């Protein structure tokens, strides 16, 4: 039989499948937000007239984001400056927490006796709301700003600690055998086997820790006062501007989403 190989060009759609999927996702997201806005509008006009409606809120929101960085004294700063103050505290506290959690986590994952020693303490302290540490930070560090940083450090400590320990303790037996057979030094074993294996676990810990820290900072700053997005919310409430409160909620959500997405991309890239 005579055969000819026919090369057929695949049907080429005008837009790629990925782009079409993205469009569908975008449309669904817009639909979801639209529903919530409609509900909000209905609620604020029918059941709860004390709530500002979406239209008024977006007017205030636009005002806030058009001049985010103005600074008119200690009690009147742009929302961008408040967000930056909060982000600064979160990153400082997060760095301190992670700097403590990484070595402790490696120790817990690598040594049975270290795990026996530390795990009960971790299990008891972990479920405590980090805010409970605020007075401790205040007493020890003599400043509400530093107490907030302290609270964030405590917050980010646990997820990183637990995930690092999990990653380190789950190094597959065959890699441990390779290290034993070929006489890897402790340092080589740590840097070429343990840490590369644990990195996806550790970054997942970062992701959880940063997410919780971003939630806790709002509560902490409400208590601490001075600057920050948490203080801004409490200050707006005192000024009876729920429009500003709603605007801040939206901005906090966007920033948190951006941080989580960035770390999510990192995790996925490590998984490959």
């Amino acid at each position, binding site marked *: 039989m005579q055969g000819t190989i026919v090369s057929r060009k695949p049907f080429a759609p005008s837009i790629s499948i990925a782009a079409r999927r993205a469009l569908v996702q975008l449309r669904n997201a817009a639909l979801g937000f639209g529903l919530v806005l409609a509900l909000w509008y209905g609620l604020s006009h029918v059941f709860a007239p004390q709530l500002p409606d979406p239209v008024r809120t977006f007017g205030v929101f636009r005002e806030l984001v058009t001049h985010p960085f103005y600074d008119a004294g200690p009690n009147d700063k742009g929302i961008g400056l408040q967000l930056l103050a909060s982000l600064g505290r979160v990153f400082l506290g997060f760095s301190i927490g992670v700097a403590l959690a990484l070595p402790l986590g490696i120790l817990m994952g690598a040594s049975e006796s270290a795990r026996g020693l530390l795990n009960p303490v971790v299990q008891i302290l972990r479920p405590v709301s980090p805010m409970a540490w605020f007075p401790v930070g205040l007493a020890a560090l003599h400043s509400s700003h530093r107490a907030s940083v302290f609270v964030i450090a405590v917050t980010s400590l646990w997820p990183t600690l637990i995930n690092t320990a999990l990653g380190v303790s789950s190094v597959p037996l065959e*890699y441990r055998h390779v290290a*034993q*057979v070929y006489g890897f030094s402790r340092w080589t074993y740590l840097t070429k086997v343990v840490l590369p294996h644990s990195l996806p676990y550790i970054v997942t810990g970062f992701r959880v820790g940063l997410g919780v820290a971003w939630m806790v900072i709002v509560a902490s700053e409400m208590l601490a006062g001075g600057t920050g997005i948490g203080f801004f919310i409490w200050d707006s409430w005192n000024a009876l501007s729920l429009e500003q409160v709603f605007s801040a909620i939206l901005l906090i959500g966007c920033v948190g989403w951006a941080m989580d997405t960035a770390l999510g991309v990192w995790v996925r890239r490590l998984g490959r």
Partner: protein
Amino acid sequence: MGYLVLQDVSKSFGAHHVLEGINLEVARGEIVALIGHSGCGKSTLLNLVAGLDRPTSGTVLLEGRPILGPGPDRAVVFQNYALLPWLTVYENVHVVVSSIHRTLPLPERAELTEHFLRLVGLWEHRSKRPGQISGGMKQRVALARALVANPKVLLLDEPFAALDALTRAILQDELLRLWDAAAMDRWIRSRFGAEHKTVLLVTHDIDDARHR
């Protein structure tokens, strides 16, 4: 007395006796294949020689000295090769070179890594990661990693189990060729000595065992 000697070796895991009263002598430069069903204890025996496991009773001797733990004088080609997936082909071999030939200056370590990667024909693929190469290539990386340690005994744990039948036949020849090549290679001879390595091979496939 033999080069590698197992004297009355037994191994139990709890109440489960895997090996009992094993006696074996392997001469220097010999290739010995252990054949048996899956789960008959041959891999356990290999692990005892590697030092990754300790016998419940009896002793394992290499050059008359008891084996007390794992070490690079008994290099293992693991069943699934156990290459470190985050390191490149080059780094997988080089990390062993750096661990074992610690007194060598850096340029000579690089030379050693390059030479063994060329020997197994993977120099062109040195920048790839294990996930990007075929099973046969992974096996050659694992072999290069084992040979570069200049072991007294080479231990191969089901070296062809993870491969399809066609690749397997090719690689059986290739393994022996590489084993010869490493021993004949003048560059390697001048550094590692002239004799063939003693090989202990574990397999459940009789074809693998009688191949030579």
